[in-house]
């Protein structure tokens, strides 16, 4: 079985559609959503509905810090610029959509895999996995053989060894066979708001039979997503960064 993984979708409908199409072409039949469905982008309603439908079909989704802030309608939690988007998002989602976000779990364990938005060492504190030390903490906090998280927008793969975990920057699209003799932590990268200088949407797949992991970069119509952000009157900077991927 091949699982498609999306993280940090950030209300970007075009990016989600493109990633889903690419992952379906790669043979994915199940979905895992690693949090931050909303925030920054102009189509939170569409993205929440899409995830809700998948979850109704057995997909797994976890809560992200933006999802939590939007549910609370908390415009102050991440500064005034993001706060404006948070308040706007809260205002355009209906009660059912907000209730769905509110009901998302912080983490889910499925067989030998852990799905969580932030660092597994303190998932509710929204700690990042942005370096080898943080990755080591996250890996040591769970017995799971393979963890997936988001929150950090750059794709990465960490693996446990003596000392600090090692870091690998995926880039070639080559499927990576994950050894069962050590433990791994994979970050698919942000679907809806890439920040590594490449505007293409990021996502990943994992094959439970072959134990292979694939990182994908999918080009999508980011100009359209940016237009929608401007049309909604959201801060310009969130439109601009989509075309530059910063």
């Amino acid at each position, binding site marked *: 079985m091949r699982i498609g993984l999306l993280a940090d979708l950030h209300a970007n409908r075009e990016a989600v559609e493109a990633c889903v199409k690419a992952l379906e072409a790669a043979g994915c039949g199940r979905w895992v959503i690693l949090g931050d469905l909303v925030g920054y982008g102009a189509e939170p309603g569409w993205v929440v509905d899409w995830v809700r439908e998948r979850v109704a079909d057995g997909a797994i989704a976890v809560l992200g810090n933006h999802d939590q802030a939007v549910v609370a309608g908390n415009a102050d939690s991440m500064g005034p610029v993001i706060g404006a988007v948070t308040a706007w998002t809260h205002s355009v989602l209906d009660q059912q959509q907000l209730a769905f976000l509110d009901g998302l779990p912080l983490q889910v364990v499925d067989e030998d895999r852990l799905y969580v938005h932030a660092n597994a060492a303190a998932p509710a504190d929204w700690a990042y996995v942005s370096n080898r030390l943080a990755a080591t903490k996250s890996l040591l906090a769970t017995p799971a053989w393979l963890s997936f998280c988001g929150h950090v927008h750059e794709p990465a793969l960490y693996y446990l060894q003596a000392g600090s975990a090692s870091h690998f920057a995926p880039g070639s699209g*080559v499927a990576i066979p994950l050894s069962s*003799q050590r433990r791994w932590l994979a970050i698919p990268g942000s679907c809806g708001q890439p920040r590594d200088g490449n505007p293409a949407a990021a996502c990943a797949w994992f094959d439970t039979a072959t134990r292979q992991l694939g990182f994908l970069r999918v080009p999508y119509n980011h100009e359209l997503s940016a237009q929608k952000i401007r049309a909604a009157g959201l801060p310009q900077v969130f439109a601009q960064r989509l075309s530059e991927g910063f």
Partner: protein
Amino acid sequence: MPVKLHAGLKIGEFTLVELLHEGGMSRLWGVSHAQIDVPLLMKLPRIDYGEAVSQVVSFEVERMLMPVIGGVHVPRFFGSGEFEDQPWLVMQQLEGDTLEALLKLVPLAPARVAQLGALAAQALDDLHRQHVIHLDVKPGNLLLHVDPTNRQERIVLLDFGLSHHVDLPDLLAEQFDVPMGTSAYIAPEQVLGVRNDPRSDLFALGVTLYQLATGNLPFGTPTSNHGMKRRLYQEPIAPRSLNPAVPRWLQEIILRCLEVDANLRYPTAAQLAFDLLHPEQVALTGRADRRQQGGRLAGWRRWFVSLGSRVERSEGKSVDASRAPLILVAIDLKQSNPALDEALREMTRRVMQTATDARLACVTVMRVARIGVEPNLDAEGRSRHVKRLIALRHWARSLNLAEQRITFHVLEGAEAADALIDYARSNAIDHLVMGARGVTGMRRLLGSVSSRVVAEANCTVTVVRARADTPRDPDADGPTPGA
């Protein structure tokens, strides 16, 4: 506790048949499988208490890499897993001995050394093109196998426990402080911890060829880290000083492989194979005539160069074989169209300029009536051959390429297209450049050489046409657009 292994034990879908080899690092069992009818080998590393961690990780690396590499120069992979605590891996068992078996016969005849070296370099080229660097090339890991279908020899590479895949996580990269490799063969940069340079394999192959040609190891078999580092500043004794039967061209090739600065070695395994296959075309330098050991001055030079490579280590960039391509330009000496000649030269110039490590083979085909006739043996044939070589050199003169970047070859064959396609395949040519001729009555009758080469060669083909030479009848010549 390690599992007790015995004949008849079922591991995964495989059944143990007999213990074939009991080594210090692992055991090899012959195994069978109900649906697989090729001979199979199961490798099981020792996991007893006290075994080195590096050994365990090495096997993990091998299990990770073997399923993703393929081709005729590696054993076919059939599966891997864990049986209780015991990891295992099954691959095809190939007939043949490793080159280690030849070590009791050294020194080998130089022609045989070159032949084996070319086969090994071709195998490494295949591996490097799959983005994998072996990092433990030595006689014991080079299996000489005779293909039962065509009776041709080839080298199959064994043991990928230290290998590095450019696009996959490197489980060995930073885990161990000691250099990983076999002390007699390991490249100097590898001693310093560099694991992403394909030219490290060319150094190790150079040590192997040195050993086959002289019976000696150029840097001995040091047992300490310090001893291994000695190759950074100590020049090896020249092979011809140990065995005068070694020709100058072979010494040139071997010593170039053993350069401490990887930039001075062959840029690719394919270029090394090319020189080993064409001894008469090897550009000789001071290496060919070196005697004994370079003096203290040469040692210092080597040492300074090695300091430089230590700086490079931190950059951590790996070399892409595609930046040092082998280019073939096919020249039809019979045709006389100055515009096409110039267009062909211009295209060749452009292709050679894009990659500074590119090498050019200028090739022409001398038609012989049929295979089996050897016009080369008589005086007339020799003079026809020499005449063509002179013409090729004349054709290439204005390209102004340094001697070591260009070679000249007169092929013989009944069909020009067949000769070019065969040559490109057996010499691992990356890019073939040739001219399209105008429309002639003969062309209509016989078909075009270039269209066959485009269709059948296993490399990139560029067909050059002089602007004024556009064929009037598009069906008559060359590949049609989009072909």
